[in-house]
């Protein structure tokens, strides 16, 4: 059982803009490899059966459950984790929005919510509160009752709009 399960395969992917080439065991999940081999522990494992969403990472721009995906399936992909959201020390609008709105409490679920919200805002930068609620319904939070997390995304939307306006102003 063990020898076959521990067969190593070479994979290469980009995480937060940095290329990683690794030999990984075929039975290791993407989450395990990100956490234990790449050493990025911001992605969390809450249930390891694909329900809670704490392990959500962006794979080529789409949110995926890294606990349900084998690392070898991510060969060639571009991955973003919670550590890759901020740029040059400036928080991503969803991070800033959560901070401004007291979005999280224990924040164990935060990596999944932040990635899911960031992916949503890429495809729909002006969601309604009900759209936000529905989009985030694949991620579990046990602390907040979700109200403050939805507030946080709404704040992020406002931050992005005001940011775009000021950026637009500079260009003009």
């Amino acid at each position: 059982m063990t020898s076959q399960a521990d067969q190593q395969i070479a994979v290469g992917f980009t995480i937060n803009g940095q290329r990683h080439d690794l030999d990984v065991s075929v039975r290791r999940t993407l989450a395990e490899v990100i956490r234990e081999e790449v050493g990025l522990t911001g992605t969390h494992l809450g249930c390891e059966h694909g329900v809670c969403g704490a392990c959500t990472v962006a794979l080529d721009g789409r949110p995926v459950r890294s606990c349900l995906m084998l690392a070898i399936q991510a060969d060639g992909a571009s991955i973003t984790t919670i550590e890759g959201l901020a740029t040059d020390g400036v928080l991503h609008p969803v991070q800033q929005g959560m901070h401004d709105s007291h979005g999280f409490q224990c924040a164990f679920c935060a990596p999944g919510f932040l990635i899911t919200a960031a992916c949503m805002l890429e495809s729909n930068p002006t969601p309604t509160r009900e759209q936000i609620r529905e989009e985030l319904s694949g991620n579990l939070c046990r602390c907040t009752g979700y109200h403050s997390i939805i507030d946080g995304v709404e704040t992020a939307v406002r931050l992005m709009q005001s940011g775009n306006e000021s950026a637009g102003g500079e260009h003009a």
Partner: protein
Amino acid sequence: MREALTPGSKASGGLVGTSVKRVEDKRLLIGEGRFIDDLVVAGMAHAVFVRSPFPHATIVSIDVSAAEALPGVVAVMTGPELAEITNPFLPLSSIDKLYNPLFGPLAVDRVRHVGDPVAIVIAESRRVGEDAAELVAVDYEPLEPISSIVQALNSSREPIWPKAKSNVMFDHTDTFGDIDGVFTNADRIITESFSCHRQSNQPMETRGCVAEMATSGDGEREMVFHATTQTSHALRWVLAMSTERQSALASMRSLAHKRDKLKRFGAGAKAFATEKKDELGKSDNAGMLYQARKDPSTLKHMGRTFLNVLDKDPSEIPSVVADDIGGAFGVKGHPGREDVAVAAMARRLDRSIKWIEDRNEHLMVSGHAREEDMTIRLAVTNDGRLLGMDVSLVMNQGAYPAVPFGAAFFTRIMKVMFPGTYRWDAYRLRTRIVASNKAQYVAYRGPWANETWVRERMLDVTARALGLSGAEIRQRNMITMAELPTSMITGPTLDVRMSAHTTLERAIELADLEGFAIEQAKARSQGRYLGLGIATFHEAAPGPPDYLDHVLPGGGAMSSEPSSTVLKPDGRIAVITSQMPHGQSHETTMAQIAADQLGVGIESIDVVFGDTRRTTFTPTGTGGSRGGPMGGGSVLFSSRDLRRQILDEAADMLEAAVTDLEITDGNIHVVGVPAISKSFAEVAANIASAQGEALAGSVNYDGGAGGWSVATHVCWVDVDLATGSVAIPRYLVVEDCGELINPAIVEGQVRGGVAQGVGAVFYEHAAYTDEANFITGTFVDYLIPTSMEIPEIEIHHVETPSDVEANFRGVGEGGMIGAPAAITNAVEDALAHLGVRITEQHLPPTRILELAGIIEKDPV
């Protein structure tokens, strides 16, 4: 939604009372949290537990040879082997007439619930450990299991703990007032039975630990136990007592060479006994005598454990370190059997070991709560005056009582709190606790909350019988502000800030009951079912000074809250709290309080917690809604003490009178003359140059005037009888928790509690079959509500004006105490005209349809 605080409330003008942004976010939002599974220590091995698939069985044999032979396996140890190197958990909080079975980290000869650990595998990696665990061959001889309360009360069933001679572990009746007289003379007696299902805390992070073996500065091997705990000091001493068992004789021989140590211990014990004389004097040893009669070996184990601990050198007592914790809601307040097994193995192998519980284990074994059946009788007058309440409570605590206190302690709180804030002439509670082949009963956010559920549900039942509304029966019987101060019939003082009645009146006003009645009638005519439910409660957060005397006499000895506030050499401030935050944002709220006291910005404060090498001993930690009132109050007074010392020192340096000094933005100066000043760093440097000790304010806060947190919840439901699903179009909370430290954080606590209440009623059930097989081992079976299920929750704060200092009262648990009552009251209101009566707390769609007579009840 917030409304202005009641006129007269203190406006501090500082950070307290404002929604300061969270300090914790700086690391948590960028993926730099420090959760237990993020920790990697050199040479670390991994633990995996072999668990019973049977609810109740004799262990005939265990063969670990195949597991041991697997490459990468370090060691495998079975229950009997581990029992030789560990002491059993001791019933430290004994209660008269309560029998506590003794047990260790692993099952020895019998398994008592699905998931009961029978062996521990230590391997080089978790995946090898899991492979090896599957190779451990256990031969079981199944026994008849006990699942339900009905089965446990059946005296023809074999006891699962033979020494108990029954599956009833506790049977005790408390009576207040002339119960028989009141019931004899009442106009009416109304009786109903209620049943609550098993629920589970289920924080998003499971339990886990890393037992790190390291060499200290003086060459001793010592353990730093990194843990997910709400109470690092209690865990530390449970580990010290449980691990490295040796015979009592060996400890005594060794101690004979440690006279100094014995002397120091004697002096320490004497000092504690003197300081806590009043509290300790209230307790009796009836509980321990009862326990010793039931199981005489208790005293032998206690004696040996005590000697083992006394004999330990400091390096042999582990330090416990807890850092970021991904939620707990009570379940991490109990040191785990797994914690002890991992610590014992790390010592035995002299190797660091990590254990991370998986979600299936967490659902199955970490703990469940609230499984209680109750029958309640109310004696009332025809015009709706409450006279007497007579309750029979049976709690199903599962197989193993939680450590260090189990379900029995929560029944003592229920005993005190059941009457709520209503007037009664008499009250009686019979409490029975039964053992079953289920997982342990643990604290879950307001562990006594079913007193509120049953009382508030029963008020609606009674109102309906008398032709009153839910609002009317509460208004007629609730103690008004004009009647304060007074006492509950169970003893504790209700002081002038106990504003339950104010929250009720404000909630009724906001709810527009007349408008709702019209809307409800109109909806019914269209075949839609709307309902409204009200529930009011008060919570001892922390309670008046006499509260614990009425729960467990002498309980106050361990309830004080230590903190220190220290001026560091660089002029920054360290707030060292014995609180153990796990989502409650203490790094922000404690810093707000200290910053206001010291006249500095919040960025000058570092909050230190969780490391027993740095924090002062307390057995409690974070739980019981203590963080604000006890933790916050303690920090307020230790910070104020430090301020006084800093001003004294600065007065000498500035050659000014202390009374002429003030502090603005970290600048200590003569009033009105900001130029003649000293900074905190200059004061710290002055002390260092004079070889003085760093200035520190320290207190062990007793809670001061204490007080109650109160709230009224109102829930609106819209029941769909086509699907059985229930929508919550509106949910209102009116609460008074005294002065708000950080309103956004308070509101987050309230909403989170209500959300768990919504989950409890409509979705969550830690379910077993009648044969005690556990059937909700994944998040596909145990349903945590998502953002689609939790309504928007309106929160209105009221604050009773007061001169009490540190007028903070706890708010962590209240949301979950009020919600199940308000929600189930609303569901009954929606369906009452169809003859539906809600007597159980779990109302998933199928149950709603069964109750409404739309589908047949499933015979299984």
